[in-house]
């Protein structure tokens, strides 16, 4: 590949990066456009952000999103990490087990969404933030598990055996030997889970139940987009993107090359 024509390669990169970044850059730029219209720049202003923060619906939705993301991240990080350690300790690799763990990452969100909606309504469970949390833990724990497992692949198991040979109980080994090595991967996994939860729309939409009380930020954004293009969405979109990008950059820094798919 060293013989690849450099100008052509640079042109391809420029074109693809322009395609990826121009649309979202336009949004960010427009969020600071005083007039709010996409067709005319009328000066820099933060008024759309001010308007956003005085909108009670949006503040409520942001709080709901935060609750869902924090609780589901904590649960998913705990369960996902234990699962990863358990799976990697096991010598036999079961195909069935692998499928169950992999499934939440690839199952179409609409399928999981309607499955959970049917499940909760047949059980007569009143839906709300708690059901969104239950649902988010499903895919979040799979992602945490895959990030932690990636780290465990290069883990030196002999130090665990050394710890056991020296008489440490299982829990002590877990706490004093395994966890310290894994902590960057666990934090990276948690940040990833948090991002996924903050951004998740389809499953939340179906498991939120009736009424506005459990509207999350993506649900709010969806409703706003359907209602029409307004300058507030640009500001909200910029903030939401900023949060995801920040969390992901942190996650990547902590855990080089450990994101799913890499």
């Amino acid at each position: 590949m060293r013989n690849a024509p450099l100008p052509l390669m640079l042109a391809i990169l420029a074109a693809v990066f322009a395609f990826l970044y121009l649309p979202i850059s336009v949004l960010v730029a427009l969020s600071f456009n005083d007039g709010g219209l996409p067709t005319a720049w009328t000066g820099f202003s933060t008024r759309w952000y001010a308007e956003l923060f005085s909108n009670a619906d949006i503040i409520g939705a942001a709080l709901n999103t935060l609750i869902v993301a924090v609780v589901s991240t904590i649960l998913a990080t705990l369960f996902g990490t234990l699962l990863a350690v358990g799976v990697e300790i096991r010598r036999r690799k079961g195909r069935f087990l692998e499928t169950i763990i992999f499934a939440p990452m690839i199952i179409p969100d609409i399928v999981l969404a309607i499955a959970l909606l049917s499940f909760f309504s047949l059980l007569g469970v009143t839906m709300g933030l708690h059901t969104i949390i239950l649902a988010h833990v499903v895919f979040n724990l799979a992602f945490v598990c895959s990030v932690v497992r990636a780290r465990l692949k290069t883990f030196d198991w002999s130090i665990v055996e050394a710890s056991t040979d020296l008489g440490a109980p299982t829990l002590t080994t877990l706490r004093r030997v395994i966890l310290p090595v894994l902590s960057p991967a666990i934090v990276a996994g948690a940040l990833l889970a948090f991002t996924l939860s903050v951004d998740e729309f389809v499953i939340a939409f179906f498991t939120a139940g009736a009424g506005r009380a459990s509207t999350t930020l993506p649900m709010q954004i969806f409703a706003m987009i359907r209602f029409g293009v307004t300058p507030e969405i640009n500001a909200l979109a910029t903030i939401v993107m900023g949060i995801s990008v920040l969390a992901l950059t942190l996650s990547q820094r902590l855990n080089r090359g450990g994101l799913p798919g890499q």
Partner: protein
Amino acid sequence: MRDRRPLYLMTPALGWLTAFMVVPCLLILGLAFFRRGLYGGIEYTLTWENIRLVFDPLYAGIFLKSAWIAGLSALIAVVLGYAAAYAIAAMPRRHQPLLLFFAVLPFWSNYLVRTYAWIVLLNREGLIVHLARLLGFEGELPSMLYTETAVVVGLVYNYLPFVILACYAPLSRLNPEVSEASRDLGAGGWTTFRRVVLPMTVPGIATGFTFVFVLSIGNFVTPALLGGGQFQMIGNLVYAQFLTANDWPFGAALSIFLIAIMMGLLTLQTFASEKASGGRNA
């Protein structure tokens, strides 16, 4: 000591997945074989009616249309993504991680926001129409939003980063000496690419294509936002059965086919990857 302990470490997660994924999915499987109640509930008499209805020309047509949109999006995404991954792999090694990071970064920003960006660009009063006017286009420009093209553009845009990631993995592992050997033996640049590089990177292409296809065919956000109300894909159809038409058994039957298509493709992809890496050990 190494074989008993894992069980209780895995219990919370596996219990959770069983309760909130496996059981609900099995429930959907069962639901598809019941009758729809008179007022939208479920009547517990067994029937093949819902499965049969999926093959009704109206619904089979929507399946085919969704498959066409998903296939087209996957194809375009693979061509663009492969080119981008190839270009990244051709850059100096030390720059590659950063380029890859920035190629994937948009993928982790909100899906709705990325789709919404295209509404801003494509709508009647949007940026592209405005630019076209500035460049001197007169008269009524054809609407770009709420078309099949808009949906395909939205899907390609949303999933391109993943394809770049999937194609980059095998490209970066490629041994440059293999290409050099091919050239030394007299093969031209294009022949080397087609006969040497491309076959060795099939797993990345298969993964990228499958991923885009699977996520596109069940998508309901992009058709709803960029396709407008009149545009239906399976995702929207399932959505409608559950939230507006209130025919849950039929919605469940549609979902089963969605899962079946997904599993079929994943099996094919695994097969393609194993076949590609089997003989050559790339």
